[in-house]
């Protein structure tokens, strides 16, 4: 299982069992299923994987930010497209 498989699996898991919304999961799955396009961006894929695994709708609430929200994932997706 490579990093793209892990990303797809984590995204599907968060869709089924977590709070990850479909509108956010779709572009992530698009990345996960296009390994040829993103193969040389492993660092960003790893970052995205961490954010998906630890996705929390209310990550910005409270005094400490230990999870990741939709803005973090959107920012990583933007970075992936820009580079």
């Amino acid at each position, binding site marked *: 299982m490579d990093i793209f498989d892990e990303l797809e699996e984590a995204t599907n898991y968060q869709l089924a069992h977590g709070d990850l919304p479909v509108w956010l999961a779709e572009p992530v799955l698009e990345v996960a299923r296009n390994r040829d396009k993103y193969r040389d961006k492993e*660092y960003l894929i*790893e*970052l995205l994987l*961490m*954010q998906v695994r630890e996705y929390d709708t209310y990550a910005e609430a409270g005094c*400490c930010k*230990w999870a990741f929200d939709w803005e*973090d994932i959107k*920012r*990583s997706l933007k*970075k992936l497209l820009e580079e």
Partner: protein
Amino acid sequence: MSAVYLDCNATTPLEPSVAEVVRRFMEKDYGNPASPVHDFGTFARMAVEKARGEVAEVVGARRDEVIFTSGATEANNLAILGLAAHGLATGRRHVIGTKIEHKAVLEPLEALTALGFEVDLLPVGSDGRVCVEELQAVLRPDTLLVTIMHVNNETGVIQPLAEIAAALEGHPAILHTDAAQGFGKDIFPLQSPRIELISISAHKIYGPKGVGALVARKRSGSPLPLRPLMFGGGQEQGLRPGTLPAPLIAGLGTAARLAGRNHLERNEMNRQFRARALAALAPLKPTVNGDPAYALPHAVNLALHGIPAARAIDALKDLVAVSSSSACTAGSTETSHVLAAMGVPRCTADCSIRLAWSHLTPEPDWAGVVALLQSIRTEFTHGG
């Protein structure tokens, strides 16, 4: 041909993919992780959190249990001196260490003594290992901290951390280990939840110099009673102020991830190198300091009887870069405190060199090394 680097316990070369990550955050994504008010800062912050997770995963900790420092020395200081205020306030002023710790542990322990703590340093056997019964014999109700290194930097010998953790079961003492030499190499012992403080360094696992971490596990969900040693910012949960070096931290994270993923393969390559090295050096009839059965496969401490280490290191410098067990201070050679603790006679210790390699190390000219060492032995044996 340039000399082959065989001093990987001092520092390791940078893994190429780690260098790429460090360069990225030096040159392109250079934001300050403490300024997440724009994309530069936010991306740097994400890189730091990614690295935190990567370090945590290797030792089976949580991401919020990793405190980044400038290296293992600072982590050791934070672990030991950071508990002083708690010890003084609660009357628990007894600490246990070992005689073979690195100076980065021994000197903070000396500082604790100056504050009124009692410190017991455990002896080791000729195999280079601490005996768990010795620990049990000195453990007291007021023992605040037990600090025992994971892998010795001079001999490569792994300490019995699992047995030590088991011996402390039910005792409130905090268990710290200086894992500078073993983190990312001997993976499983450090995953014991009983080892609550773990000092690590990036440059021993093919990462950059100048960064490390203290893993501080929570006890029953609460943070350990550590206090900061420096002040001037709220970074790292208030325990380690200062702007986080995102390039170095990202490099540490990548190095940790690679170590977690590849340690078995690396260890096997190191084991094969070790076998070739010992076979090549066999004509010199060296003896190994420390029990090889307990040593990591990337290092060996060899006594080359009749060949002074300082002379050997100097003579070999065009072939291989090695170091001795001795630390030179102000021109005088001090015998290794580690070998002395193991009962190695001074004349043997002074003829001992440390060889440490990695999965990136090319094969040295062993025949040339042996010939040179034999000529030195002849010179000294015959008083030439």
